[in-house]
């Protein structure tokens, strides 16, 4: 019984996962070593790690990552903030919601990457068209989730606030914003992940720099190990974003102990 308990504790601490990954890497490494796997398609982990190290030391990886991060950040600010504000307003006013929602419903499903060519015709092939598409991507999830977040606030909370004499500012800061915060964070997570996805996609087709461009260049020159390195870096960014947002959620929404975003 006791042993059993300890075994489950072992899993909980995540060591088992680490062990499995480690075994997987060893099998991979050995597989290449005995020519069971092609080193062109599957360069051994040791080579990938060495390349990773090299690309960090010569700044190349960090430069590309920095540019992608900057695009994600700009897109999130330029698209996410208006999405958040409009979401709060639409959630609060049923009339405005009925007025605007058809436009949102019509434009939201368009894959943003598909309109990149159109945007490039309008804004040119420079940085602004890339950021515009990323911003557009970040705009919708925050808008939709924020509006839904406001709409699910119980009517009673508005009545209590009104009963105690809350003015419009107080209703926004003490009821509407905190009440919708759990769903705002869900929207933020979706916006951030989609912004990263679309940044990479935009860079794949039309950029000289950034992780997407690095992936594309590595493919064109058949430097598979660099391809893996940039893919790992992209995955790391995604993991980092989600980890960061989870920490933020625990801090910002302590009243939803079951909060999982």
């Amino acid at each position, binding site marked *: 019984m006791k042993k059993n308990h300890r075994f489950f504790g072992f899993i909980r601490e995540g060591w088992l996962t680490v062990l499995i990954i480690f075994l997987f890497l060893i099998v991979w490494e050995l597989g290449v070593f005995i020519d069971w796997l092609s080193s062109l398609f599957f360069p051994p982990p040791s080579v990938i790690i060495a390349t990773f190290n090299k690309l960090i030391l010569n700044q190349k990886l960090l430069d590309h990552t920095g540019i992608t991060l900057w695009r994600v950040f700009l897109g999130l600010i330029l698209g996410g903030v208006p999405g958040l504000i409009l979401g709060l307003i639409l959630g609060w006013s049923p009339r405005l919601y009925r007025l605007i929602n058809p436009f949102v419903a019509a434009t939201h499903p368009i894959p943003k990457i598909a309109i990149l060519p159109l945007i490039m015709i309008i804004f040119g092939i420079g940085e602004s068209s890339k950021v515009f598409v990323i911003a557009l991507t970040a705009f919708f999830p925050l808008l939709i989730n924020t509006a839904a977040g406001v709409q699910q606030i*119980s009517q*009673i909370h508005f009545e*209590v*606030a009104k*009963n105690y*004499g809350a003015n419009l500012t107080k209703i926004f800061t003490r009821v509407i914003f*905190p*009440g919708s915060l759990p769903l705002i964070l869900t929207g933020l997570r979706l916006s951030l992940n989609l912004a990263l996805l679309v940044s990479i996609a935009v860079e794949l087709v039309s950029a000289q720099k950034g992780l997407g461009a690095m992936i594309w260049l590595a493919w064109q020159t058949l430097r598979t190990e660099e391809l893996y390195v940039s893919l790992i870096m992209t995955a790391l960014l995604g993991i980092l974003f989600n980890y960061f947002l989870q920490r933020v959620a625990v801090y910002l929404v302590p009243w939803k102990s079951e909060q999982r975003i």
Partner: protein
Amino acid sequence: MNFECRDLGKVFQTRNGSIPALGDIKFHARDKEFICIVGPSGCGKTTLLKLIAGLLNPTTGQIFFSQDLQDGISRSALVFQEHGLFPWMTVLDNVAFGLEMRGKGKKERWDLARPFIEKVGLKAFVNNYPHELSMGMRQRVGIARAFVSNSQILLMDEPFGSLDAQTKLILQEELLKIWREDQKCVIYVTHDIEEALFLGDRVLVMTARPGHIREEIPISFNRPRDLSTKELPDFIKMKGHIWKILKEEVRKSRG
């Protein structure tokens, strides 16, 4: 503060036509009086409270208050059955909410709120969130918030409706104790006849929808009241009497 409802009526407009919820409510609430309102479900009790609170406007009639609004203090404070607390605020912030809306600074409103939190026995929970409290504790927070706000009229909408019998009894006694220390005019809506007789100075019995007041019953049991009050012959007689009225009303509403 006292107030008077004159010929108060409320009609709700819905997609399926108009629904009269209240008709011709007439009563006068005296200063520091504890009034209980009982009535068959759906008779418009909650609507009446919302009219007094100013959350709804009456279709007909008017409410006259003896005092004008002063200094941002709302005339009345509502205590809801459940979900009345803000889940995103701690107990302290919930209780201090009315003061915050009046523009009081953090320290001042917290200092004013703390004694009331102690009074309802939640000193150890000031920094907890409502979801960490039991139903009974949450209702205590709601009561503390209403008393802190310093409104002269307390409007309570079945505040103990979802509590178990023991918790309910304890909270009723606590409410009476706090009310005796800080007497306000209380309008207490309930479907529990015994509760109405136990708490009130007067019980208003409402008819089925559209509700109006069918009978006013003055209650004169000595205060402080306790469990033995519920065994007095008069108590049992009044309970039977109100039961009979309500039964008739429920039958009527079923047509």
